[in-house]
């Protein structure tokens, strides 16, 4: 029991450090996790890491959180998951709290306002880039492209006319369609092998 707690605290510190120095999201964290956990400490094998990445990308939530929870639970069960996740979250939490305290006052300055109007343009570009990367991972089957097109047209209309229609419903519809198509494939005895 004591050993579990000590190990979990080590996980906490590791993930705290990783999170503090990872800018740019989960993928950057992957490289560090491979180095620290697979190469240096042997907490995971490379195959296990790949499995974990696949799972993290198939579940909702930030990659970083998913990874921390998974690695933590594999090492020392619930306590490990809890402390690892806490470690990932804490640096952001503290830094953002500090920034939030000063933000309102900072926004009064002309220089800051001007900077932010430029930053907003950068954000637009970043979203576009994220969209493009996601587009590349999309299997280019007719039905996925149709769904993409429909969502784009549909959600654009919703946003343009300020209709109050939550993206959650769209996501649920997508999930159902995807599931239905999969079930349909099984039932028509389609032996086509799905490769990732």
């Amino acid at each position, binding site marked *: 029991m004591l050993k579990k707690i000590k190990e979990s605290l080590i996980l906490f510190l590791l993930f705290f450090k990783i999170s503090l120095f990872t800018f740019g999201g989960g993928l950057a964290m992957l490289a560090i996790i491979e180095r620290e956990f697979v190469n240096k400490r042997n907490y995971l094998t490379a195959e296990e890491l790949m499995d974990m990445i696949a799972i993290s990308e198939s579940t909702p939530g930030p990659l970083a959180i998913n990874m921390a929870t998974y690695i933590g639970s594999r090492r020392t069960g619930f306590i490990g998951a809890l402390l690892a996740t806490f470690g990932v979250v804490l640096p952001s939490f503290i830094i953002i709290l500090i920034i939030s305290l000063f933000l309102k006052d900072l926004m009064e300055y002309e220089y800051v306002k001007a900077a932010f109007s430029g930053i907003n343009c950068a954000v637009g570009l*970043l979203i576009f880039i994220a969209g493009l990367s996601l587009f590349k991972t999309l299997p280019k089957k007719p039905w996925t492209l149709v769904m993409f097109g429909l969502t784009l047209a549909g959600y654009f209309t919703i946003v343009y006319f300020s209709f109050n229609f939550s993206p959650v419903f769209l996501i649920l519809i997508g999930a159902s369609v995807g599931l239905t198509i999969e079930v349909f494939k099984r039932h028509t005895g389609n032996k086509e092998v799905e490769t990732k």
Partner: protein
Amino acid sequence: MNIFWELFKTFFLIGLFSFGGGLGMLPMIEQEVVLNHNWMTAKQLYDFVGIAESTPGPLAINLSTFIGFEQAGFWGAALATLGAVVPSFVIILLIAKFFRHFSSNNYVKGVLNGIRPIVLGLIFTTCIKVVFTNLFSGFGFKADLNFSWQSLVISLLLFIIYFLFWKIKNKKIQPIPIVILGAILGIIFHLF
């Protein structure tokens, strides 16, 4: 209505449905935070996304902490962040324990193949909205449109720089340099 419970609930929902990375959450966050709860304007949200992209840690956590803090101080931040984290935490624990072969399950793959195009559509719509808001200070049927030539120039410059860097050096620029560049260009074009 208890603000703490609202924050937890809202971010729980957001956390439960975020696929496609931090920016994939943005449409959901806009829906819940801006439209449903009026906790901030869309522009304030985008401003903060800029900051959140430049600070360490997952975008989702940065956003939930900030929005929670704005609404209800430290405990608001704590509960919003907790809400965002709990769905992932629980789901991953369950999978780690019972469903190791979760990601190779064909039905799971099917569901994901269904969700991805939707998320993509949401992201691109949000992208269009953000770009429009930058250029015209508003977006939508009833919006008041105010063109900003500075935003057009800055956006084009950023895009060109990103594109050239990619083609010439064959590497993609990281988010932080882009944000910093945006900030500098913003100062140059708005104040000089």
